[in-house]
């Protein structure tokens, strides 16, 4: 029947993404699990929403891998959590900001995450990102909107001593961004000398 023949299954972006065998062994590039994301705009940068602080410095991250908040500007935050927690988080934010003018927009299906880790992560990202990713300029716990090649991304450096990054991009840019990172990963190793 028509409905059965043309039934579409939800395909996750980057579900078919593959990594080349030649990728630098010191690098991991992995599409992140699907998760919920919220864009929050509010003038008042004090207190907490859903247990996450609003008063962190601009371009910093708070929370942990499972539930985080990134302050992208004076009045803009990106919040991430698991898909199962999405409704509870939205309700908690709405009740914490009751009486305050704010906008909370669910952008879960717009954002795609790619996890980059390994000692050479910063070299890899700098193939397309113009930011200074040194430990002084972009320490762990940083998060900012920036560029990777031609695409706009949000770059997060998770807390911890080992370099672990999250690249968040828009869904339609995901294949480009993933392909860009993989190709850059081929270039972080010095070419072997011809025999």
């Amino acid at each position: 029947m028509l409905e059965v023949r043309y039934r579409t299954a939800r395909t996750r972006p980057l579900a078919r993404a593959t990594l080349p065998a030649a990728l630098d062994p010191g690098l991991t590039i992995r599409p992140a699990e699907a998760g919920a994301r919220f864009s929050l705009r509010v003038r008042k940068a004090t207190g907490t929403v859903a247990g996450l602080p609003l008063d962190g410095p601009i371009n910093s991250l708070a929370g942990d891998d499972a539930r985080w908040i990134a302050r992208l500007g004076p009045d803009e935050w990106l919040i991430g959590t698991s898909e199962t927690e999405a409704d509870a988080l939205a309700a908690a934010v709405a009740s914490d900001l009751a009486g305050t003018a704010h906008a909370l927009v669910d952008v879960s299906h717009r954002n795609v995450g790619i996890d980059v880790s390994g000692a050479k992560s910063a070299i890899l990202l700098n193939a397309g990102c113009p930011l200074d990713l040194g430990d002084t300029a972009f320490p762990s716990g940083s998060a900012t909107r920036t560029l990777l090649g031609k695409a706009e991304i949000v770059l997060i450096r998770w807390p911890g001593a080992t370099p672990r990054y999250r690249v968040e991009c828009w869904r339609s840019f995901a294949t480009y961004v993933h392909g860009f990172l993989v190709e850059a990963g081929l270039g972080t190793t010095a070419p072997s000398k011809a025999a």
Partner: protein
Amino acid sequence: MLLIDCPYCGKRPETEFRCGGQAHIARPTDPSALSDADWSEHLFVRANPRGVHAERWNHIHGCGRWFNALRDTVSDRFIETYPVGSEPTTGSHPSQGTEPTRSTQTETRA
């Protein structure tokens, strides 16, 4: 790469920014009272100085905020950046001894 000092994010690469043209242009409070010539002057005529220029910039691929900047159009040096609604602390350019160009009136362009 040229670094621009965003008032909110600090020094960031030039490619994250977009220029929004001349700053400090006050919209006439009563446009209907203006002559066509004065209105078109407000809408379309901008200064194009050789030297210090006050401009609007947007950190579009960063915090997304607009701010103002004093830029020398000869050297492309950013002298100062400051939030919208405030005035620059740098008064004049040493070589010119004049205020940054901020008027769109015809006589200042002549």
